[in-house]
């Protein structure tokens, strides 16, 4: 049973456009929702994260929108650049600095930004 569902699997956007990736979760105990960016041959790196007490968080060109009632959250990349081409993963965990804080990942979205 996949607890975090991510869509689309792949996305092609023109340079300067907006990239939107969506995720839905099932476990209402989740209270930490990060997005990770992964380049080929590299490990995932944290991009931006949100907690359910806010509906939106923005860092530079990256924005997370969070809808607690719908159990959905999304990543928006404004003014997408070719350097943003990577695989993006949403994730969720129950938070807390203990051994139980394990990330459950979505299936990933391969983003290609065309110049």
């Amino acid at each position, binding site marked *: 049973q996949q607890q975090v569902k991510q869509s689309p699997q792949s996305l092609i956007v023109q340079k300067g456009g907006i990239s939107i990736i969506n995720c839905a979760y099932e476990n209402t105990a989740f209270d*930490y929702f*990060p997005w*990770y960016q992964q380049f080929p*041959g*590299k*490990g*995932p*790196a*944290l991009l931006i*994260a949100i907690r359910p007490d806010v509906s939106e968080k923005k860092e530079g060109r990256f924005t997370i929108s969070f809808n607690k009632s719908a159990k959905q959250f999304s990543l928006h990349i404004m003014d997408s650049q070719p350097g943003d081409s990577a*695989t993006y*993963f949403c994730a969720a*965990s129950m*938070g*807390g*600095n*203990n*051994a*139980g*804080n*394990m*990330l*459950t*990942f979505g*299936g*990933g979205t*391969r983003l290609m930004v065309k110049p």
Partner: protein
Amino acid sequence: DTAVSQTPKYLVTQMGNDKSIKCEQNLGHDTMYWYKQDSKKFLKIMFSYNNKELIINETVPNRFSPKSPDKAHLNLHINSLELGDSAVYFCASTPSGTDTQYFGPGTRLTVL
């Protein structure tokens, strides 16, 4: 200056062998993890380890075992390797007081 390092980067071995992957973090993080990324890029937690507390994902075969000689290291031992174990394995760690997980560069394991 990699915060989380893994060795080796590539590991090719025969079915039935036993192998280990090493992970070290030099940031004084309290919690460490192992994740498996399959050929379809799906990332799945395998283990979480904090101050001698080990949490195992119930789907992980008991051929896999983490070993922590000290707080900075969490190695992954795999016995009787199978073809389906071929994947990229990532180590990660979390500093105290935050939820951010920092991933290592990965180890690509190929079982022939």
